[in-house]
Each structure stands twice: as C-alpha cells, then as structure tokens.
C-alpha cells in the first residue's frame, strides 16, 4: 500500500509529461508551443529551488544568479564558438562551478538561514548591477557584446550537435525543454531516494544529529547546492533559447518569482513547484491581456499577484499539493468511516503506513 500510491503518482506525472511532449506539437497553435517552452524552462528552475530549499532546507534568495549565469554563459560561448553544443555544456558547468565556490564560501563559514539568504541575494544583485552596466564596447567578450541593460538580442538558437547552421526549430526547442524537464524531475526523484538524498533530508531536519552520526553536513549541503545551481543554469540555457538573455534574468523579481512558485505549489515536494510555476505563468500571461482601454476598469497585475501571495502564505501555507492531498485524505476518511468498521486511516497518510 505504502509504495503503491507514490508509484501511481509518478506514473501519472510521467504520462502527463509524455502526453504534453508528444501531444502538444500535434494539436496546439504556435503561440501555445512557444508559451509552453518558456513554462517548461521555468519549471526546471522551479525544480532546482524545490530541491535545495524543499529538501535540503537551504533558502537561496539568489537562484536567479545561476539562472542568469547559465543564460549568459550560453549566449557568449555560442556567439564565440559558432557551434552551440560546447556552449550548452558550459551553460550548465559554469553555474555549477560558481555554486561550488559560493557554497564553499557559505557552508564552510557555517552561515545559515536568513544570513545565507542575504548573501545569495547580494551576490545576485552584484551580478545584476555588473551586467546592467556593460553597454559600452569595452565589455565585449570575444565577439560577443554583453549589451548592458538591453542584453544580447542576437542570442543564437541551439543547433544539432556538430552541425552549426542547422538550427533547431521552435518545435524541437519545445520538445527539448519538456524532455529535459521530465528528465530533471525524475532524476531528482531518483536522487532523493538514494542514501545521499536521505542524508540531505536528514540534515534539513536536524543538522547536529546528522553530524554526530559522522557525516560532514557541509559536503552534503554543498553537493546539493551545486546540483541546484547546475539545474538553474540548464533552465537559463533553455530560457535563452526561447526568449534571449538580458540582465533581468539576474534580478530580484526573478529570484522572488521562483520562491513564489515553490511556496504556492508546496514546499517539500517536486511536483508542487512545477504546478505552481505553470499556474503563475498562465495567470500573469492572462493578466496582461485584460486591459483593453486605458483608464477603464484597469486591473493592476501587481495588485492581483500580491494579494494571491499574501492569501497563500496566510491560508494555504503548505501549498496547493498539501491542500489537495489533505482534502483527498479528509474525503477518503469520511468515506471510510461511514461503515462502522474500525479501519486505520492508512490511506489518508500513506507515508506513515507500515
């Protein structure tokens, strides 16, 4: 019983994922494909934070730093190399290395909780400020101008490996983004099921106890932080291919947005943040089409988003996934308890069942 439910859940996620991957291009219009590509790129970013915050308990306020770094690394390398394959690899490797440096700096300094948040936030602000002022010609890396505030509009699209000039079509980019999202999602699931994953979760619960058991918590935290950084870089790579890179990738609102997705979807799950991300994207996208005539019935998107965030933190603090599973558990219990058999509420709490 205890294994069946998560298995069914995973299967359902996989089926939905594959359905989107193969079904959407056949039926959907172009604009839906483009939107879905952007959503999938962001969903990878949501998973990256879900992993390090939800499972390792590291609240990173600067996940956008790795996201932006991935995008910029890709754009600069692709312009200089001609072929994009190496650039794509770098776009994951460089943020990972940067995460390793930053993580070493923080975890070996025993910096925790809100201070860690401030450092990550500050680092992403530094990168934002830096990239924002690179409009001048002195900021060309090889043949790639960094472009300052305007970003790099000529970010090249990925080509088939080894065949520069053979660019991927938007449908291919879509398939790649959704395919990567599915891979990343199940990869993280698998990682969390290993011994390593269990130790990481244990550190979140009680770091001292884990250290007393002989594990070096710093190494585990650093490793998961680096994985999170690499995934954020991957997301930046896909974003660069669906929009283009600009300094806003590093900005505070992007970092904040990721946190909103995670909190709305549900901290401590992987599927929740993905759902939260897609929901918020669809919502903000829709808000932008509302205001047809200036001054008449103007709906301010900031107002709507702000109210949603406050309401969620106050009323649904564990996010949508918890809300759904609680409601499901409550319903199941109601249905069970109607016949007067004293059955334990195993179905309601599959995690704790033997």
């Amino acid at each position, binding site marked *: 019983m205890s294994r069946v439910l998560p298995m069914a859940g995973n299967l359902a996620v996989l089926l939905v994922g594959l359905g989107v991957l193969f079904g959407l291009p056949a039926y959907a*219009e*172009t*604009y839906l494909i*483009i*939107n879905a590509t*952007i959503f999938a790129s962001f969903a990878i970013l949501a998973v990256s934070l879900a992993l390090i915050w939800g499972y390792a308990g590291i609240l990173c306020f600067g996940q956008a730093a790795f996201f932006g770094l991935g995008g910029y690394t890709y754009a600069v390398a692709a312009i200089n190399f001609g072929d994009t394959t190496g650039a794509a690899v770098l776009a994951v490797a460089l943020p990972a290395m940067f995460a390793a440096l930053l993580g070493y700096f923080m975890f070996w300094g025993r910096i925790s909780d809100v201070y860690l948040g401030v450092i990550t936030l500050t680092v992403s602000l530094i990168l934002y*400020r830096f990239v*924002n*002022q690179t*409009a*001048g010609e002195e900021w060309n890396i090889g043949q790639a*101008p960094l*472009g*300052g*505030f*305007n*970003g790099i*509009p*000529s970010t090249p699209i990925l080509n088939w490996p080894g065949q520069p000039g053979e660019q991927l079509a938007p449908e291919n980019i879509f398939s790649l983004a959704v395919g990567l999202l599915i891979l990343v999602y199940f990869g993280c699931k698998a990682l969390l099921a290993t011994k390593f994953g269990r130790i990481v979760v244990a550190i979140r619960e009680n770091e001292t106890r884990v250290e007393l058991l002989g594990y070096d918590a710093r190494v585990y935290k650093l490793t998961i932080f680096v994985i999170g950084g690499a995934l954020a870089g991957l997301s930046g790579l896909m*974003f660069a291919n*669906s*929009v*283009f890179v*600009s300094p*806003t990738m590093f900005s505070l609102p992007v970092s904040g947005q990721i946190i909103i997705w995670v909190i709305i979807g549900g901290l401590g799950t992987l599927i929740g943040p993905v759902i939260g991300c897609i929901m918020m994207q669809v919502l*903000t*996208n*829709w*808000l*932008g*089409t*509302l*205001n*047809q*005539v*200036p*001054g008449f*019935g*103007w*709906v*301010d*998107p*900031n107002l*709507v988003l702000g109210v949603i965030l406050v309401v969620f933190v106050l009323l649904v603090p564990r996010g949508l996934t918890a809300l759904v599973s609680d409601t499901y558990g409550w319903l199941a219990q109601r249905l069970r308890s109607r016949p007067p058999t004293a059955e334990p509420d195993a179905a309601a709490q599959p995690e704790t069942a033997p």
Partner: protein
Amino acid sequence: MSFSRRRLLTTTAAGLGAASAGPFFIRDLRAEDFIKVAGIHDTSGGLDIYGKQMVATMDLAVNEINAAGGLLGKKIKLINYDPQSNIQFYTQYATEAATKEKVAVVHGGITSASREAIRPLLKRFNTLYFYNTPYEGGVCDRNIFCTGSTPAQTVEKLVPYVMKKWGKKVYTIAADYNYGQITAKWVKKYTQDNGGEVVQTDFFPLDVTDFGPTIKKIQAAKPDLVMSALVGAAHISFYRQWAAAGMNKQIPLASTTFGNEVVITSPEEHNGIIVAFAYLEGIDTPVNKAFVETIHGKYGIPHMTELATMTYHGVHLWADAVKKANSIDRMKVIGALEAGASYSGPAGKTTIDAKTHHTVLDVYIGEAKDKKFNVLESFSQQAPADTAAVCDLKKNPNDNKQYVIDVKT
C-alpha cells in the same frame, strides 16, 4: 485620476468572471469582419508611465479611423497586450498576436530590448511591425518601421543651439545603456564639430537615485552646461538634487530625454531646461491643440511625449498605406509605405524614408516652463542620418539586424 472602491470591486469581479470563462471562449465566427491590429505596450511596472499614453493614442487613432468608415470597408479591432515591463511576455504576446490573432500589424515595444525580442519573431511570422519610440538607431530590417527620432536627429540641432547660448565646455551625464551611451557619443561629436569640448562623461545605471557625489564632481569640473541623457523614474532624482543644491541657478541643463519628467518635477526644479524632441506638447498648431485636449480630457493622460504621439502617427501612416495598397497584405503595405508615405499630424510632418524604414521628421527645441514645454525653434524634415550611414534597404532588402553605429569623433 479619480478612483472609487466600488469601481475597483466591480472590475475585480468582472475580471474573475472573465477568468473562469477565459479559456473556453467560443471563437468569434464573424472575426473576418474586422481587421485586427495589436498593440504591445507596458501598462504596468516601471515603464507604465509611457505605456499607458501609447495605448491611449493608439486607441484614439483606431477610433478615428473607424469613425471615418474603417479600412477597406471593415472596422479595425485593436487588441492590447500588457507585457508588465517583462521582456519574456513580449515574446509570448508577439507570437500570440501573429499566429493566433493573425493581426495585420503590431505596434509596440518601448525599450530597445523589447523591440529586439519581438522583431525577429514578427519577421518569422510575416507580420508587419511598427516601433514608435525614440531609440539609439541602427535597426535595418524591411519588416519594421521605426517612427521615433534617433540621437543624430535631435542632438545635431540641440548641441549647437545650447553651445551658442551658454558656452563651449560640456559635461555629459547619461543613462548607462545603449541609448545613453550612443547619445553621449553624438553629444561629443557635435560638441567638437562646433568647436567645444566635453570635459567629462558619466554613466548611471537606471536604478541610481543618489546623485550627491556626481553633483559635487560636476561643480569641481566647472562646465558651461550639462547635457543630460538620464532616463526613467529613478533618474528624476538628479533634477531634484541638482535644484536642491541650488545648481540650477549656476549651470544650465540641456537634454534629449527630459520629457515626462516635467510633470513630476516642480517648476523651480525644471524651469529653463532646454530639450529637443520630435514632438513637444507646446507645438502651436490647431491639429496639435485638439489632439492634446482629447488626450488630456478623454484619456486622463497629464502630459504627452514623443513616444505616444509617434504611436498615433504610426497607426495613421499604416492605415493610409493600407488604403493606398487597397489590401492588408504585408508586402503590398510595405510597398505603399516605401513609396514616400507621409502623414501630417500633431507632431508636424512625418515621412517614411524608404532606404532605412525610419522617418524624416520635424525636430523641435523647447524650454521647460511651468510644467510645459514652449517651442523655441523648429527644424522641419530632419533625415535619419545616423541609421542611413549603415543601412540601405533598397540595396540590401534582406538585411535583418541592428547595426552598431560608429560615431566618429
């Protein structure tokens, strides 16, 4: 702007109602009766100050055309998108406008970044594009028409004017992005061409609000005048702090970017600043006076800028070309526009330059005076010389990029 809680509640409720119905809208079967036109302007977030007035003038232009019988016997239907000052939404909405709504033309984009986000997309989807904002110049693409002024057009006239008036030693302060950087180069070029000297150029990221150190640096350099190419809400602080230090009575200011700021700053802070734009509210023609009155009254926009007025011109230029081509087919309309299309409106006469797809326009030098700009001098039909130096779409119709204009100083 007036506001009532009830109105907020009803609009929110209407919004929620529409939300639940949103995805299941039944396609409008009579959609063929309309010519669809899309506007993509930031009406929320940091750029809304421009976006809202651009939406207003676009709405006005479309209403006028519809009131005069529409185009090719059909009414125009305007679809507005609000990208919320977020580049990513430009990509999404441009694709939606081109492939789902199949609009005849897209007007929009405020920053250069937003333009470069949608320009390649609209080209790929064969949808005509109008960009109506003053920008750094250099875009060379047959699918786009840029109706705003470029730095060479305004700076060329402003620099000699203020140098003659105030002196030859110039200190430049500019926003730290492409537009500011290139404007600073043009300022340097024209200052030197007129026998002057730029003693120092400082660049500021768009979110800097503290100009104390800079104001002291300027005092140490003792220039005859300060050229400002500062942009955006944060940079307004400069004009306040400049006036608070009493410097506005010591060293005069000139600018090609000080526009809407005139509403937000007080007369003591801005009186005497000299600017150059392709449109000023103070233009003394009956057409402009009627236009300004409508925008102030009906749309509640307190001050009109070049961006909004050129959006108005842009919509009319497109509509006239559609009439002339007797079709909304993209290539036919481009052909009609390239054949010297011209529109005379509130900003004077705007003519399409076929070689660059930019516009030959009237440039006005004005002085800020009690929350308005008085026109001091006007220069009719200034050509987009900067873009013309790098772009010739007649010779190379397949060009598709933004050139970096090399300013020789």
